[in-house]
């Protein structure tokens, strides 16, 4: 009895620590006073202001576009790289994997500053594209990391069999290999998407004027106080992700049912 209580209490405590800040954020998004410590009354004002605020909306679009594009391109490059690395001999493969792991192990700030210095040295003007290139760069290792295990699990003979049966290498790749490694590719894509959404330091050093992602936009508001429109935006993002997760989990649960009945 007591043990049960402590188990529940412990889990409750963890959940409180995880979600208390988010709950407070959601509550404050309806607060008509800008201050974090004073409740001024319920209002939807900040939500309306959010959609009118051009700079925050632009930051949101930029964040989503960069996250999507960099994840997509990094997935393509990363998958190709993983396949190549997989068919290397042992020594070159170990070296390549070590090199690939460096951006992940490095502190973000090292990657950010070195990329900025590279762009300056090449006289490449910082702007949207420089941020995109930087995001692709730090995303590729994560994709490679996600795809490699799936490649290892692959039966090496199915590809040969497909070739024997008359498929061209490209056809064999798309029809035989890709479907098998697809979960890894998918995971890699989402991992890259999340890392890109989350990033602040690298974007901060490689962005050009008037390019802002949400993280850099929020950072610039620190001196004067973060605007409540950001609370509204965060609440909306949180609810969106929550709904998506619920839908996805429902779907997987439904998929499992038919197998059990049989």
């Amino acid at each position, binding site marked *: 009895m007591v043990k049960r209580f402590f188990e529940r209490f412990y889990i409750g405590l963890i959940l409180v620590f995880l979600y208390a800040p988010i709950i407070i954020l959601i509550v404050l998004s309806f607060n008509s006073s800008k201050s974090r410590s004073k409740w001024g009354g319920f209002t939807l004002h900040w939500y309306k202001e959010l959609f009118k605020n051009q700079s925050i909306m632009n930051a949101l679009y930029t964040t989503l576009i960069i996250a999507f594009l960099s994840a*997509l391109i990094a997935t393509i490059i990363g998958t190709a790289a993983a396949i190549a690395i997989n068919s290397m001999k042992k020594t070159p493969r170990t070296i390549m994997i070590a090199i690939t792991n460096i951006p992940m192990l490095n502190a973000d700030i090292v990657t950010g500053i070195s990329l*900025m210095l590279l762009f300056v040295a090449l006289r490449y003007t910082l702007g949207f594209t420089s941020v995109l290139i930087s995001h692709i760069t730090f995303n590729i290792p994560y994709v490679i990391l996600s795809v490699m295990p799936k490649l290892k699990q692959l039966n090496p003979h199915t590809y040969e069999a497909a070739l024997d049966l008359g498929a061209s290498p490209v056809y064999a790749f798309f029809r035989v290999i890709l479907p098998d490694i697809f979960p890894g590719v998918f995971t890699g894509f989402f991992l890259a998407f999340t890392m890109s959404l989350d990033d602040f330091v690298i974007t901060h050093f490689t962005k050009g004027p*008037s390019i802002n992602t949400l993280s850099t936009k929020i950072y*610039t508001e620190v001196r004067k106080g973060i605007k409540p429109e950001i609370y509204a935006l965060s609440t909306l993002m949180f609810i969106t992700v929550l709904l998506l997760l619920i839908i996805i989990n429902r779907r997987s649960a439904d998929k499992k049912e038919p197998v059990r009945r049989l």
Partner: protein
Amino acid sequence: MKKLLAISALLIVMVLLAGCSDNGGEKVYVYNWGEYLDYETLELFKERTGITVVYEEFVQNEDMYPKVESEAVIYDVVCPSDYMIQKMIENDLLYAPNFDNIPNIKYIDETYLKSSEEFDPGNKYSVPYCWGTLGILYNKTMVDEPIDSWGVLFDEKYSGEILMIDSVRDAFAIALKYLGYDLNSTNEAELEEAKALLKKQYPLVQAYVVDEVRDKMIGGEAAIGVIYSGEAIYTSRENPDLEYVVPKEGSNVWIDGWVIPKNSKNKENAEAFINFMCDPEIALMNFNYITYSTPNSGAWNLIEDEAVKNSPVAFPPQDILDRCTAYRYLGEEVEANYIQKWYEAKGE
């Protein structure tokens, strides 16, 4: 699969083109503090002059400086603080604008031009944009008597109720002024005395804060805090028990001003932008948005709310200004010395 790739490729091309799209026409690259002007003024500027403002924001002078110095991005107009302007002048990073193209400078009050000479001798490089004082914000229901001295920050009877500012120059300015010295002091003995005072203060402090002081004071978490005058207006509105005072020993007056980097590619557009910012109506719009004091006397005349216009917080009388000094850039060695002493005072 192929269709998916084709569509993605198309998307990529479209977005890359959109990402580096160019509307052509005249541009001016402006680098300013976050939330430091009314964004509508940028639209108005485009309407009146046809010049598009490419706007970027920074959070600290120290973030801005390497970006300008490394020429990673070429800016046309930047808004640094007083000591940073001096550092940029000394490192030959600035262009002295042609003030014939900035006729609206006549609206900037003489007092602030004179204060600016502390860091920009002859007012050759900068045009004041916003200014303020450093002072004490206190909750009148939580203190025994009205405050008028920096001494209250070191007073044991307010132990645990003090919010000290977490900024090297500001902390030393307070200590030095309280001890009767110049806040731009480079005298080792004076600095050691200030450091000792700050070290004695350490156990009395509830927290070292910069921005959090606003919410903490509004929420009544502490009786006394250090704050800039611009924030004091906002906090007093939210909590009428809060009062702001510039202590009798004197304080710091800070000025943020517009400058033009030397490598700017659109110097005339930059001058037009600065001129536009000095227009009284535009300065008034910005003042209403950021609530930091404006040095623009034309804008001051246009303020409608009498309480704000005569507020001793936003527009203190001359005798208060006379005892406030602006920061000077003291050079890398001295700055490092200050930082070292600050860490020692906080026991780090």
